[in-house]
């Protein structure tokens, strides 16, 4: 064999004998699952990743479908189906939240599943417990938000929402509302035990925030004792804001009484854009006259720190007749310069806790003691909000309940409660004629109407054969 042959055969052999390792080429542009959560820092990033998609969608939708807002003539640019109660299962405005919360839930589950594989020691256990607690509470909160929006009713036998306890792609059916409450409570209970006392970052879920969530859940579940206990816990920990600070809460200059809020920085989505469009300067939804009038006479409005914080009156703007003189002011300015409408999203405040406790106390005991205690909470709250306030006790249970509801209307305007508060008591949504001038007759939404519950998204119904739609959708 001459040199040539050897050369040919060697090169041939060299090419054949390639190593099989050549096929083990890992992804380079993304982090694969084995490297996603290696240590405590990664877990923290994962927790932040779970908070990241939390949006203000339900707050906005609740404002638009309830009697808090009205559709001004100048808004020719929005899809107004939600406001006019003509939405169906393919209306993104009322169905997108269904997807959003499950994103957070899934991310929380992914991190929760990774945590047991990460070694901890005595010095890091505390932090790891905190992360785990936050994730459990976040998971519970998201399911509760889904329940508020999409449950067929809040009664124990109502159709709830699938409760996802792990990361998986399945096609689940709807459990009962009671089952949802049980899961939510279990997660919150576990969370509360895990989150350390000293942790006080209010853009994340602290122990106090868990108590606040528990209080709200208990109110919906009509567990009055729990509601009172948990609301008290929050009230003790986080007192009401002084009158001078109240307005600063909404511009993010004060953290007073803010138990939990979603952080918003430059570049994030702007909650204020739901009410006012910068391009063209259009008021999309204005405060309803029903709400404005709830704050009473001009003097009373001046005395109420909430009025000017929530509602802006611009008579010059309204002079032409086609533009709204009233604007939602609650989310108009934040601390980021040149970013109108960008403010953090306040999810829990102490003010709500007073109202929860008042309502729960009254429901638990409609005797004198209960009425007195409820009156006190209502009075304390009003004292913190109104100058020159003198409380006149209400002794009749129903009247007091109405007063509490009316106070919720004012105190929690545009914070995502009104629609669900009505739904809690099966009350219709009623608009005044002057608030319904552009709604093609959407004056009253009865609790028997399909739209009284938000629909399960059409896309979900299409792929998930186990899913049941809320009542009356598809009837027409």
């Amino acid at each position, binding site marked *: 064999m001459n040199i040539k042959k050897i050369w040919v055969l060697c*090169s041939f052999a060299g090419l054949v004998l390639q190593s099989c390792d050549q096929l083990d*080429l890992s992804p380079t542009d993304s982090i694969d699952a084995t490297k*996603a959560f290696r240590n405590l820092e990664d877990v923290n990033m994962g927790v932040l*990743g779970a908070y990241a998609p939390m949006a203000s969608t339900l707050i906005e939708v609740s404002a638009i479908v309830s009697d808090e807002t009205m559709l001004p003539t100048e808004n020719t640019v929005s899809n107004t189906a939600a406001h006019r109660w003509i939405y169906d299962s393919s209306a993104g405005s009322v169905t997108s939240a269904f997807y959003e919360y499950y994103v957070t839930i899934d991310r929380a589950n992914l991190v929760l599943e990774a945590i047991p594989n990460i070694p901890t020691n005595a010095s890091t256990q505390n932090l790891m417990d905190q992360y785990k607690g936050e994730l459990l509470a976040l998971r519970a909160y998201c399911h509760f938000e889904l329940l508020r929006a999409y449950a067929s009713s809040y009664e124990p036998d109502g159709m709830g929402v699938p409760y996802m306890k792990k990361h998986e792609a399945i096609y*689940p059916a709807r459990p009962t509302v009671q089952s949802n409450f049980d899961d939510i409570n279990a997660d919150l209970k576990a969370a509360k035990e895990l989150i350390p006392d000293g942790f006080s970052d209010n853009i994340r879920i602290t122990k106090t925030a868990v108590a606040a969530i528990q209080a709200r859940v208990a109110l919906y579940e009509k567990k009055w004792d729990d509601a009172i206990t948990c609301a008290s816990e929050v009230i003790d920990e986080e007192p009401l804001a002084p009158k001078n600070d109240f307005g600063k809460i909404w511009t993010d200059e004060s953290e007073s009484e803010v138990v939990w809020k979603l952080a918003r920085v430059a570049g994030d989505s702007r909650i204020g854009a739901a009410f006012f469009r910068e391009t063209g300067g259009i008021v999309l939804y204005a405060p309803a006259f029903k709400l404005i009038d709830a704050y009473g006479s001009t003097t009373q409005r001046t005395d109420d720190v909430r009025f000017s914080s929530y509602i802006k009156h611009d008579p010059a703007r309204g002079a032409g007749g086609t533009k709204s003189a009233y604007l939602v002011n609650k989310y108009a300015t934040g601390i980021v310069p040149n970013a109108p409408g960008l403010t953090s999203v306040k999810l829990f405040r102490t003010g709500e806790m007073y109202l929860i406790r008042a309502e729960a106390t009254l429901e638990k005991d409609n005797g004198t003691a209960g009425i007195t205690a409820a009156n006190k909470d209502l009075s304390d709250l009003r004292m913190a909000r109104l100058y020159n306030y003198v409380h006149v006790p209400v002794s009749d249970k129903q009247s007091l309940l109405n007063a509490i509801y009316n106070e919720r209307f004012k105190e929690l305007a545009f914070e995502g409660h009104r629609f669900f508060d009505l739904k809690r008591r099966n009350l219709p949504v009623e608009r005044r004629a002057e608030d319904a001038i552009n709604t093609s007759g959407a004056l009253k939404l009865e609790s028997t109407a399909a739209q009284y519950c938000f629909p399960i998204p059409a896309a979900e119904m299409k792929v998930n054969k186990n899913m049941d739609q809320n009542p009356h959708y598809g009837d027409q």
Partner: protein
Amino acid sequence: MILIMRTDNDAYARKRIQHPLGNVGGVSLKTIFLMKLILFLTVVFSFSAFADVSAQKVNLRVQHTSFKSVVQQVQRQTGYSFIIKDQLFKQAKPVTLDIQNRDVLDVLPLLFEGQPFGYTVNGKIVSATALMGKTSSVTDTRPTAVLVDQQSIQGRVVNEHGEPLIGATITVLDGNGKSSGIIATTANDGTFTINANSGDKLMVSYIAYFTQTVSVGQERPLTIVLKEDDNLIEQVVVTGYTDYLRGKSASAASQVNAKDINGVPMSSLDQILQGKVPGMSVVSSSGQPGQSASVVIRGIGSVNGTTTPLYVMDGIPIEGGYFQTINQEDIETVNVLKDASAKALYGSRGSNGVIVITTKKGKKGRLSVNYSSQYGFSTLTQPTFEMMDARERLRFEEEVGLETGRDIGPGWRLSPKNPDYATQSTAWQQNAGHVLDSLRNVNTDWRDLFFQNGRFMEQQLSLSGGNDNVQTYNALSLWNEDGIVKETGLNRYSLRSNTNINYGKFTAGINLNLGYSDSKFTYNEGGTGVGSPMASVYYALPYEYPYTADGAFHATDEDMPFYDTREGSRGIDVLYGTSDKTEQFKTILGLNMAYEIMDGLKVTTRAGIDFRNSSDQVFINPLSYIGQNQSGKKGSFGEGYRRNFNLVSTSGITYNKTIEKHEFEVSGFFEYLQNNYRAFSYRGYGLDDRLPENPNAITVSGDFLPSLSGSRSSSALMSYMGIGRYTYNNKYTATASYRYDGASLSSVPTKNRWHGFYSFGAAWDAKQEDFLKENDFIPVLRLRASYGQTASPIGSAFVHLPLFTVGTTYGGQQAIRPSNLVNPDYDWEYVNEFNVGFDLSLFNTQRIKLVADWYNKETINMFLDQTPSATAGGGSGGTIPLSTGKMGNKGIEFSLSGDIIQNEDFNWNIGINGAYNQNKILRVSDVTDELPDGDTRIIKVGLPYGTYYGPQWAGVDPENGDALYYNRDGSITNVYNSEEQSVPLSSNMYPKFTGGISTSARWKDLTLSALFSFVSDVQRWNNIDFYIETERYMTSNQSKRMLYDRWKKPGDEAILQRIDIPRNYTSKDIQDASFMRLRNLQLNYSIPTAWFGFGKSFFKTANIYVQGQNLLTWTTWRGLDPENNRQYGRFEYPNARKYTAGINVNF
């Protein structure tokens, strides 16, 4: 060019020098140029190794064996080629021989002894010659001819490209048309010398060419051009791993030859193939020069996977979609492999078909220099819609004002019919009249401002030649093309160098393609926004002009009031204020070697790379209006690099053996493929206008930080394969192949990594049967069938792995999130395909040829993106990649060609090919039978993929002008509700019937040829109508139909609804996009070389021609260009009409 001519003159003077490598025949001293080209090749090979040429030895032991089979054995042992007509084989007598290790030249007399014909030898070609009572003659390998005498006629035989035909047989016919027995063969340069009398005729024949008879006239020297017999050329099916004779191949494969590829003035190879291969649909993606087409073979086979075929050039897989730097002049053949038996050789990459490209190789003989050049220009084709002119527009504005009170322009604002008019002063009214008059006279045709007649130029020079051991082909080309849109175009420079060496049992080849291209694109093609140049052409008002009387340009009305909307001017601003360029460097390098260890046993190895580096640049001039709207208000500059590197290495062993009537061939291969990709880009703002198009102009500041991005990935494929063929008695063939592919993690989960792909085929060469052998009416009849499984690559990498990204923040802090939803059971997408077909030729010259195939193809495990339950956490629109779908494609394809007129001075042939494909979705997934496919289409079981979905248009109500829609129950309503009214429309974006018609007529030296291509049974979404026939965008210019064909009063049977009724997407937007196009029309004149008077052979051949591309299009499509692969037509870059004139000379 002059330099070359001078050197060729030297050559003509026959100042030859001895080549250092020994006798290199006609290769002469002009090689200085050539040497530079191939210098690097000499580094690789030791040429001195070829000094000792071993003799070709023959071993034979045959008993009464058919002459043909003995010839085949000699052919295999020696590498000599035999040119023997079938008729002669029929007359041949069986052979009995016992020869050990004897030189071939000694064996030939023994072999031909007693046969009723003689033979000639030229080089390594043995041609059989009719005996006619004369003895056989033998010529040696040097260029001499037989039977030379003093009154000889000198001539040359060339093919249509002017390339010399070596070993062609020239027979002198006497006055009665009978052979005089005087025979000659051509030498290495195609020349021959023969003695004949004036008035005699010469019959010239050559394998795979039509035989031609010429009269001996006065012209000296005589050049005889032979025409290729395509059917014979296609006799070998080239798959990249095997070369089987057509009669012994079960594959459905089509071949396109150089003459149909070279000289076409289109800069992308895939586009050139349109209408030429039955079953292959080629639809351009844009009229931008150099843009690739969408190529689909036998119906679209995948929804989310790859649908483009695999391209293999000289054995090296190359990227589809990057043909900008590949010069079509260098291409010899393109073989399109369509059925499983051929595709399965490519296993997991083959399911969409394989396009095997073979480039030109050097041929033995003296150096051949070919120069071709063409010049031309391209123009805009007219769309079928027309925009309003100034007069019409002003009238339209007035009508809209009258009907609705809406003020959409000066036509109403200044109109005397406007109620406000009467309230104005007389001076105002007079001025209004003057303004309207002057606006009417502006009447700008915006196409003149955005489009141009693009210039085109191509130059190509090639040198080829070689001796017995080394053959080389080298070519340089230059291509300059302006687009029809201003500021667009393509420049290309390419170099091709192919060298083959054969040294006894060792053969090797090195193929190199180096290319550089430089493309200029238009900004935001297909965009609908104001300022997208391609949309602005139509949005612009006809009474707008971008420049004022003093020549100043105004992109907006900020500093000067205008009556128009400045939408055209914004487009002009973008056209000149931005640039979008891509430079591409591409190298395709392949090296192959083969060594014959022993008789019939050969090892081969091949290695190659396909390397591409694209650098993209987007510049927005800080001085332009669009530049002032960038972040930082001073333009932007971005640059990016994309590098793709493919490496392939294939090694194998092939053994073939013939025992009596049994012929075996088996091969085993090992192959490794690797792909590496990396990309990087940045974009910066705040440019200093003194440094145009330069990164140093960028300001880096906290307010507008430059953005950075990048990516890198790699994948690999390892394969073992076995291929076998068995042929019995040249009649029956069975083939089988198996390929075991292992893919890297980017494609499939490790558990599904290895998979085997197989095929079986059977072929029957019926012509070899006794009952057909003697039949002159049917010269070819072959039948074939095959079945096999292939797969297609996964569209995106690593989709089966749970992946995370840090691309998210909360409260300004970096966070991590999952980036995909995962299907851990992801598997390959398989395609099972069955094919039957036949080849049939009729009449003894094969005047009519028919090739037909029927196939049934089923894609299983098809990739689909399924929307999961919201609870999976994918968010709205999130999807899980599944491999659960099933889709069928079945169809027939045929090509029919015929020579209608065949005589010496006039030839006319016509060919038609077509394919009908039927696609059907057979399964979606466990949870659903339908999925939305974009906004306007649906994937639904029972319907073809690509079916449009939307509400049915019910016309315009003649009573009140309302737009009417069908509800699902068939009732008609004027309320539009897409959700409730949408139905699958019987319209589909993928054509069912495609094909081409080619015809060529030759009269003496003039040839007229034409190619038509057609696409039928296809619909597309015309989204342009939505923008130019809508009340929503009425302030922009609208189509003439908005003026003339809309509902105006009760009783109008109008096409368009009342002016104030919103326009919605309905079935009327899905329009028939079938078309037939005169793709190419060419008139060629072959100049008789004697005209040049340079003596006998300064030019071997010279051709001049004129041709036109896309001259005519027949269609009812209302958009810009029916030929576009997008699902919608929307302000795309239309294909141009092109006219060129060129020359092609061979020295």
